[in-house]
């Protein structure tokens, strides 16, 4: 950086001198010139006035409740997640979004498949829905009783509430799995009702 412009100190030189950022070896020369040159002294005084004003700036303090407000919304990593590979942690944190996406796609698939099957096989819709609900109800009860028994006997039921409370997104993922399973049962029922068989392709024809 050149310190001089037409025999006077440059604005940059005066600024860094007033900010206390001038090179040590330049200081005597700068200070001598400021003392000797009225024009540069005026500018130096302005720069020093600015830095004096900047030095008067103070920080601001948030309200007393700020700490608690922040901590209330922070998700503290749980022991289940600690020590896991980074990708597992990321997937666990995004579990609700992933589950919601999978659930949405699955529902779309079910509705699309049902509409297509009903149209293809020309099954009366009221009859189809009645059979569907009937079979789904049976499957739900049978599934719930069997699942309950498995969880109870294996001891998994005891730790379930804690897992739901601690692992982020596990509740949503659980619901998504349940709905997906029931949807699978429903489409299986739909297949049985319509007796649909895919067209056979004769490779030798």
């Amino acid at each position, binding site marked *: 950086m050149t310190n001089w412009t037409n025999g006077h100190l440059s604005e940059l030189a005066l600024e860094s001198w007033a900010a206390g950022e001038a090179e040590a070896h330049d200081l005597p020369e700068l200070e001598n010139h400021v003392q000797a040159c009225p024009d540069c002294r005026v500018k130096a005084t*302005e720069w020093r006035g600015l830095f004096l*004003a*900047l030095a008067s700036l*103070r920080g601001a303090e948030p309200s007393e409740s*700020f700490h608690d407000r922040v901590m209330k919304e922070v998700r503290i990593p749980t022991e289940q997640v600690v020590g896991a590979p980074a990708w597992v942690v990321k997937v666990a944190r995004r579990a609700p979004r992933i589950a919601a996406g999978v659930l949405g796609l699955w529902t779309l698939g079910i509705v699309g498949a049902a509409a297509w099957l009903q149209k293809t096989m020309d099954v009366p819709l009221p009859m189809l829905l009645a059979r569907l609900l009937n079979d789904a109800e049976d499957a739900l009860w049978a599934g719930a009783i069997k699942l309950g028994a498995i969880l109870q006997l294996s001891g998994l039921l005891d730790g379930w509430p804690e897992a739901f409370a601690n692992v982020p997104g596990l509740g949503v993922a659980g619901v998504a799995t349940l709905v997906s399973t029931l949807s699978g049962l429903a489409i299986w029922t739909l297949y049985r009702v319509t007796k649909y068989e895919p067209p056979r392709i004769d490779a030798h024809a």
Partner: protein
Amino acid sequence: MKRERVPSRKAKPVANSSQRGQADPIDDKELVAQALKGDESAFGELLERFRRPVFSLIYRMIGDREQAEDLAQESFVKAFNNLDSYNPSYRFSSWLFKIANNHAIDHLRRARLSTVSIHGSPHAATAEREEETRIVLEAQDESPEQEMLALELGGEIEQAISQLRPDYRTAVILRHVENRPYEEIAEIMDVPIGTVKTFLHRARAELRQALGHLREEP
């Protein structure tokens, strides 16, 4: 009349690990590692260390205490809930300030504000609300004469800073309020150091012009 307190920088030292019964302060990165292991007190200490500077930056960028608290809260929550994405090869403070600064600038963009008023929020619907949102300076541990001078200078400079464009304002606040080195300001603003120096030089030139009537006695 409600006045907001903006205490002296030296009035409240940042919390350190001496509160945990140790002599030396724990490094920010060590605290982050502890927080990632599920240590709630590590989150608390990081918050204690940075709540004032982060709030202070956003407050000066926005000019409205209530909104600044909300934005600072959101910045901390965003940072703490994504702590695993922090790269320890950088300063934690840079990462946190970058989140806070970007959040404040996004807010200014949404609100279509480039400058702020120290006389109260431009969104204030009533005179009371405008009074509540004023940036008010408070001098501490100073003689009455020093206090008067600080208040006078502070008011002038606050007004001038609030009229700077946002990136100049960020650079000035980080350099002159938070005393951050050029390298860290460059990291926070995601620009080269030379650009930070240019921002500061231009900002100071504008401030000098705005405060042209201030003269130091020879």
